C-alpha cells in the first residue's frame, strides 16, 4: 500500500504538473523553432506575442460572458480562443509587413533581426499593458476539478490524494491534438513539405518554384495559432500577467534550443525535458521516502536537491550544458 501511495504522490506533485507545464512550454518552443527555421531569427518578442494572443482571448471571454454564452462545465475561454487566434495572426502579419519584411528583403544578418524583434517586444508589451493593464487576471470559469483530492482518497482508501484539474486535462489534450495536426501538416501536405524545404535550403527551394511569400504567410498563421493557444492554456492553468509571460520566454527558448532549434519535434520534446527537470530537481522527496523506506531509515531533511527558488536556474543550466556539449541540441537541429 505504501508503494502505491508513493506512486500517487509522485503522480500528483510531479508527473501531472510537469506534463501540463511541459505542454505549455512545448507549444511556445515549436513557435520559436518555426520562426527560427523558416524566417531565420531568434524572436525575442515570443513571450509578449503569446501574451497578446492571451489578452485577445481574455477580451473575447469577457465579451461572451457578458452575452451569457458559456460552455457549461468547460471554460468559456475555449470558445474565445479561435477569435483570439484570428486577431493574433492579424497582428503578426501587420508586424511582419511593417517591420520584418523590410529586413527580409535586405537579407539582413540574424543579429539585426533579433534587435528588431526587441523593438517589437517593447511595442507589444506596451500595447498589452495599455489595453489590459499589468495586473494579474484569472479568466477561468466552469468546473475546476475532474477528480478532487478528497474524493480520490475516499474512493480508493489511500492516504494520498490525486487531484486532477480540468485545465490540466484540457492542456494536455489540446496539445496532443494540435501537435499531431501540425506534424501531419508539415510531413504530409504539399505546403508543409515546401516549408521544410524552404527551411532546409532557401535557394534550392526558390529554384524549384516555391513561393516565399506564401511560406512566410503560412508560417505566421501557424505561429499565431501556437502562440495564442499556448498562451491561453498557460493563462487558464495559472493566471495571466504580462510580466510572467515575458519571463516565460526564457524557458521556452531553453526548450527550443535543447530540442535542437529548427526542429519542431525536438522543440516539442524539449518542452517536456525542461519542465520535468525543473520539477524533478526542485521537489522535496521527504514524503516519498517516508513511504518507500522502512521507518528506521526515514530521512530527516527535506531531501530536496535544489530549493524551489532555483526553478528557472535549472532550465537555464541545462541549456548552458547542452550549448557547450551538444550545440545542435539533443535532436540534431541546425548546426550553430
Amino acid at each position, binding site marked *: 500500500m505504501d508503494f502505491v501511495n508513493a506512486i500517487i504522490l509522485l503522480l500528483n506533485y510531479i508527473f501531472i504538473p510537469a506534463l501540463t507545464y511541459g505542454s505549455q512550454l512545448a507549444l511556445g518552443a515549436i513557435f520559436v523553432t518555426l520562426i527560427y527555421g523558416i524566417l531565420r531569427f531568434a524572436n525575442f518578442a515570443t513571450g509578449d506575442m503569446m501574451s497578446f494572443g492571451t489578452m485577445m482571448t481574455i477580451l473575447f471571454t469577457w465579451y461572451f460572458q457578458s452575452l451569457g454564452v458559456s460552455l457549461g462545465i468547460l471554460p468559456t475561454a475555449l470558445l474565445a480562443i479561435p477569435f483570439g487566434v484570428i486577431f493574433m495572426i492579424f497582428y503578426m502579419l501587420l508586424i511582419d509587413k511593417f517591420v520584418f519584411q523590410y529586413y527580409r528583403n535586405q537579407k539582413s544578418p540574424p543579429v*539585426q533581426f533579433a534587435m528588431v524583434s526587441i523593438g517589437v517586444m517593447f511595442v507589444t508589451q506596451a500595447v498589452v499593458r495599455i489595453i489590459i493593464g499589468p495586473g494579474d487576471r484569472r479568466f477561468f470559469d466552469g468546473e475546476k476539478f475532474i477528480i478532487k483530492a478528497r474524493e480520490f482518497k475516499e474512493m480508493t482508501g489511500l492516504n494520498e490524494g490525486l487531484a486532477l484539474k480540468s485545465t490540466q486535462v484540457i492542456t494536455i489534450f489540446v496539445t496532443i491534438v494540435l501537435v499531431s495536426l501540425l506534424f501531419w501538416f508539415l510531413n504530409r501536405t504539399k505546403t508543409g513539405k515546401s516549408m521544410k524545404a524552404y527551411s532546409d535550403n532557401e535557394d534550392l527551394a526558390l529554384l524549384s518554384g516555391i513561393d516565399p511569400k506564401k511560406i512566410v504567410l503560412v508560417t505566421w498563421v501557424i505561429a499565431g495559432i501556437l502562440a495564442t493557444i499556448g498562451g491561453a492554456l498557460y493563462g487558464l492553468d495559472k493566471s495571466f500577467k504580462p510580466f510572467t509571460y515575458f519571463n516565460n520566454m526564457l524557458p521556452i527558448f*531553453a526548450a527550443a534550443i535543447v530540442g535542437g532549434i529548427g526542429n519542431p519535434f525536438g522543440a516539442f520534446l524539449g518542452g517536456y525535458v525542461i519542465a520535468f527537470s525543473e520539477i524533478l530537481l526542485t521537489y522535496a522527496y521527504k514524503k516519498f521516502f517516508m513511504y518507500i523506506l522502512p521507518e528506521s531509515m526515514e530521512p530527516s531533511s527535506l531531501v530536496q536537491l535544489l530549493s524551489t527558488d532555483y526553478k528557472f536556474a535549472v532550465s537555464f543550466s541545462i541549456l548552458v550544458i547542452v550549448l557547450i556539449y551538444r550545440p545542435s541540441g539533443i535532436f540534431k537541429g541546425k548546426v550553430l
Partner: protein
Amino acid sequence: MVGIFQSWNIALSIFNLCLISAVMTMGANIQWGYAGLINFGIMGYTALGGLAAVLISVDPVQEAWRAGGFDILMSLWLIVVMVLVIRFVLKRFEKSKIRTYSIAAIIISGILLIRFSAEPGIEAIEAVDPAKTGFLGGFGLPIIFSWIVGALFAGGLAFIVGKVALGLRADYLAIATLLISEIVIAIIKHEDWLTRGVKNVIGLKRPAPYEVDLQTTDWFIKLVEKFNSGKLSVIENLADRQAALNQLVIEGSSVFVKLCYSGLFLVVVIILLILTQKALYSPWGRMMRAIRDNEEAANAMGKNVVKQHLLIFILGSAIVGIAGAMLVTQDGLFTPGSYRPMRYTFLIWVMVIVGGSGNNFGAILGGFVVWFLWIEAAPISLFLINFFTAGIPETNALKSHLIESVPYFRFLLMGLGLLFIMRYRPKGILPEKIEIK
C-alpha cells in the same frame, strides 16, 4: 529644462542616472561596437557590481562570522579543491567519454558535499538577527573602492561566461548570456547569507556628505545664503527671512549631495571616455575592428581571435560592473528584486543602438537621450493624451483608461524609437567614424 519645469532636484537625479546609463552603454558598446559581440547579460554584471558595493562597504557582522564563518570558508576551500581536481583531470587524461563522465561526477558530488557542509553554517548565519542582518556583511571599507571591485567581479564572471559561450553564433550568444544573467540574479536573490536576498540591504555608506549633517554646517548655510542673497534681501521680516533660509538650506542640501555624486560620476565617465577613445584609435582598436568585420581574414593575419574576443568581453563587462556599483552607491541600497532584464539589459541595448554603435560619444548620447525619454515619457504622453482628448469629458471611459495606463507608454516610445532608428538610421544617431588615410 526639467530643472525649470519640475525641480532642480529631479533634474539632477535624472542627470546622475543618465551618467550611470552612459557608463553601462559604453561597456555594451565596447563589446558590440568594437568587436561585434552581443551581450544580453548586462543585468547580471550590473547586479554583481551592486553586490560588490554591498560587500565592500557594509561593516562585517561579527556574530554571523562567529556563527557560520568557518563553514562558509570550508565550503570555499572545497570549491577551490574541486576546481583544482578538475583541472588536474583535464590535464592528465586524454579526452574521452570516461573523462567527461568523471568530471561530471566530481562536480555533482562536490556540489552535494558543499550543500551538506555549508547548510548548518548558512542556517546559523541567517538566524543572526534576521530582521537587521542575517548575513555575513562586508569589509567596512569606503564604498568608492567597490567601483573597482565591482569591475573585478564582473570581469571575473565575464571570463567564465566567455570561456563557455563565446564560441556560439551571435544570436545563441545573446540567448546564452541572457539566461546566464538570470542565473546570477537567481543566486543573488536567494543566497541570503551573502546578500540578504530579497530582504534588501539598506543604508549603505556614502561617498558624499549626508543632508542632515549639511543642514547644520556653517559654511554650507553661508553658501546657500550667498547664492540666494537677492531673493532673501526682499524679505523684510527677520523671522520670515530665517524660515525662508531654512527652507532653502534643506532644498539646497539635497541638491548639493546630488551634485557631489554628479561630480564623481562625471570623473568616471570622462576617464572611461578618454581610455576608450584612445583604445579605439590604437592599433588594438584597429585589430578589433578587423576581427569584427572579417574574422577569417584577421585570423589568417595571425591575430588570436578567440583570445581577443575573450579580452574585450571581460573589459566591456567590467565597465558595466563599475556602473552597477555606482548605481548602488547613488541609491544607497541594494535590492536584488529590482534587477529586471527589461530595465537593465534591453533598455541599455536600445541606448547602444540609438546612440550609435562603435562610437563612444554616441554611446554617451544614447545613454542620456534614452534615459531622459524613459523617465519623461509618462509626463509627455500624459500631456499629449490631454491635448488630443481635450474635447472629451473627463468621465469618458476611454480617456480615463488611457490616463491610467500612461506609465506604459514609455515601452511604446522605446520600441517605436528602436524600430525607426533600426530602419532609417541603422548606424545610430552618431555613426561610427572610420578614418581612411
